[in-house]
């Protein structure tokens, strides 16, 4: 059998690998063309900017998910975590109350600290409890969600100080040279993520861990530290997403971040990251998140399908993406 593998003609294999990495980008191009044909309003700068801005939360969270998933893990708790962090951040802002930049800074610090703690909790339980990440994060997903419902007493947590809201508003609605701030944040997170995953020894260790944990262990990779850190990175990404999310509505409710984990994982998988670990594609993930939002946008603009079915279409996309990956891999 080794012989066969050894002598498989090389050029076609290279082509295949390229295809795998390239397919999300091709899908994006096809979608943009389709959108342009369906509705002339689609290709306007304002519509496209709007799409990319709206996908920023999911994209930022999905960059973190790329680390967890390519390291062989999974985090289902991100949506609930986002809701909890948003709620606690708003409560902190309300408690301090003064409409100053320092208040915002403290609130942001609280949000990031809490999200790091949540990610760390996931990581430590997975690593030292030796429990399947699916189960661990299913558990913490329920815990985080219940905590936000409890904090909000079933209702809504709103930023009470209107001046503070006004001060915070530009973080979602503002722009620099015409580029919305959420988009800048999301590109920065992706660039830093790509740098860490592709260029650092930590990133190399993540891929090694996801490829084969035993090989990583026998090669002296500090697997406990690496695995825990992937969940911490996921936490930080959730925290950053929340920082951009809170000024949008200025409130957190029990339904904030519902099904974000599904969208984040979908974006990662569409992007070409292997769900079993060992292959991580940050830029693919970014494109995956944009594709999800584009599909929703095109559905709204087209009137072919009810926009209430957006979730169904996104669900179908993840399945189709897996089928495409599989067929590219087999051939």
């Amino acid at each position: 059998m080794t012989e066969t593998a050894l002598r498989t003609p090389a050029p076609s294999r290279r082509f295949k690998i390229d295809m795998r990495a390239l397919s999300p980008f091709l899908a994006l191009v096809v979608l943009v063309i389709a959108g342009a044909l369906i509705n002339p309003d689609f290709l306007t700068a304002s519509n496209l900017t709007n799409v990319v801005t709206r996908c920023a939360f999911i994209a930022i969270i999905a960059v973190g998910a790329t680390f967890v998933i390519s390291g062989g893990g999974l985090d289902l708790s991100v949506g609930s975590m986002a809701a909890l962090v948003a709620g606690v951040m708003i409560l902190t802002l309300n408690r301090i109350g003064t409409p100053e930049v320092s208040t915002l800074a403290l609130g942001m610090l609280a949000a990031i600290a809490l999200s790091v703690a949540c990610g760390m909790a996931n990581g430590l339980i997975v690593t030292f409890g030796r429990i399947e990440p699916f189960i661990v994060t299913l558990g913490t997903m329920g815990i985080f969600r219940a905590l936000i419902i409890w904090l909000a007493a079933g209702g809504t947590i709103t930023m009470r100080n209107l001046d503070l809201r006004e001060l915070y508003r530009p973080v979602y609605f503002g722009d620099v040279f015409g580029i919305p701030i959420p988009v800048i944040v999301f590109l920065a997170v992706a660039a830093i993520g790509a740098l860490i995953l592709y260029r650092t020894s930590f990133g190399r260790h993540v891929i090694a861990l996801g490829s084969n944990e035993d090989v990583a262990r026998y090669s002296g990779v500090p697997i406990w530290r690496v695995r825990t850190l992937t969940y911490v990175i996921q936490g930080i990404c959730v925290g950053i997403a929340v920082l951009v999310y809170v000024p949008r509505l200025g409130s957190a409710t029990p339904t904030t971040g519902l099904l974000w984990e599904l969208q984040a994982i979908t974006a990662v998988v569409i992007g070409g990251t292997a769900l079993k670990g060992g292959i991580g594609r940050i830029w693919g993930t970014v494109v995956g998140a944009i594709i999800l939002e584009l599909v929703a946008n095109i559905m709204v603009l087209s009137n072919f399908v009810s926009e209430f079915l957006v979730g169904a279409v996104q669900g179908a996309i993840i399945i189709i993406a897996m089928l495409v990956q599989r067929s590219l891999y087999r051939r």
Partner: protein
Amino acid sequence: MASVLRADQISKSFGPIEVLSGITLALMPGEVHAVIGENGAGKSTLMRILSGHLPPTKGTLYLNEQERRFSGPVEAEHEGIVLVHQEILLAEDLTVAQNLFLGREIRRYGFVDDGAMRAKSRAILSELGVTLDPDTEVRRLSIADRQLVQIARALLVPHKVVVFDEPTAVLTPVEAESLFEIIRRLRAQGVAVLYISHRLNEVKAIADRVTVLRDGRLIGTHDIEGLEPIEMARLMVGRDMSKLYPDKPETASDQVVLSVRDMAVPGYVEHASFDLKRGEILGFGGLIGAGRTELFEGLVGLRTSTGSITLNGKPVRFTDGRDAMAAGIAYLSEDRKGKGLLLQQNLRVNLTLAALDRFSRGSFVDTAKEEATLDTAIRDFDIRARQRDMLAGQLSGGNQQKLLLAKMMLIEPQIVIIDEPTRGVDIGTKEQIYRFIASLAEEGRAVVVISSEMQELIGLCHRVLVMRNGRVAGEVGRADLSEDAIVFLATGVHEERAAEIAAGHV
């Protein structure tokens, strides 16, 4: 006599690359026909064609002298051609009986009939001379027993041709002997046996005829009479192989670098003590399951263990593999594919994984330095990769082992522990690996070689420690090195009696 299965001018190409060309081979009923050749010679491809897993690109197969094309392995099996795979393909959580009938369960009123399958399993196993309880879960069986279950499963269907693909790669001599007993029984029943092996001594012992392949071409088919292993090796490699082992370096010293006392690995090893000296090659022999691998995995912190370890006169304790590497001890796993290399990653990533700190500037990996090191490794270790960006899984077994060696040498170890250095490695590469191991000792490093191939221990090591049932049974000094001495310590009986034991005559 008419052949039962005959290949006429078989060729096989994958894309533009021809891996087999013009192979002609006739299998007679009641013969054991060995196919030998280096890794990459096309043995496995030929086997897969003969057993219907692959269609030939050119040429014809004749079954009972009738031209025949198989649509797949199922059709070949219907005609009585069965392949015993090299890898163990069993469901670990199922019992022996459940595995034997997996996919062909005996049913009664639509439900599985466990009683009938258990009874049939027992009958089949005893027919093979195997004493295994059909209700044992496969996960609790030794590798040798799993292999026997796999053979029993293959022989469950009516068979005229049985193909064994390197069946003894994981077996010790006693276990191999019981396999030969099964093969002889098959031969006596008029079954044609096709036997692929790297172990030429075995081929000499079991085969009636030998077909030699080299680089996808047929070198010839010979009667075993008068064909000695050394000549087989020459035919395989195409050059003289009389000097497989290098001279033992005269660098073994009295300077103890590693001293292990009372090492215990729960469930595997008890009271193991030994000293390792600078510049020596210390062999560890014994049967599979004797605890050799576990002893060293415990030593380097990959398993929990107790006992005292003294490194260069200082007591040490390793809590994970990282600690041991930092202290200058490299352990190369016997399980190259499962624990040694990332098969889905390229050569560069694999090469530098254990020593990544040395390739980092700040927290960033210096890819240019990695590439330069890969160049050096490819040259120094003679890693034959058609392309630099190949995946490790696409290398042949021998080249994977060289890559693993190169990888672990990057941590510049003072002590190198190599577990089964030449398992699944062709004979030409073996010679290179032996020379490399000798050069390690010459450089003043201490080397431990764990091996189930006794010839290897004898040809390579200064002295050999033999383990039996988790304990160090004894030491064989350089002057006394012989297969019999090792077998005696490993089993408690001398070699000539091993065959009798295996045959159940004791």
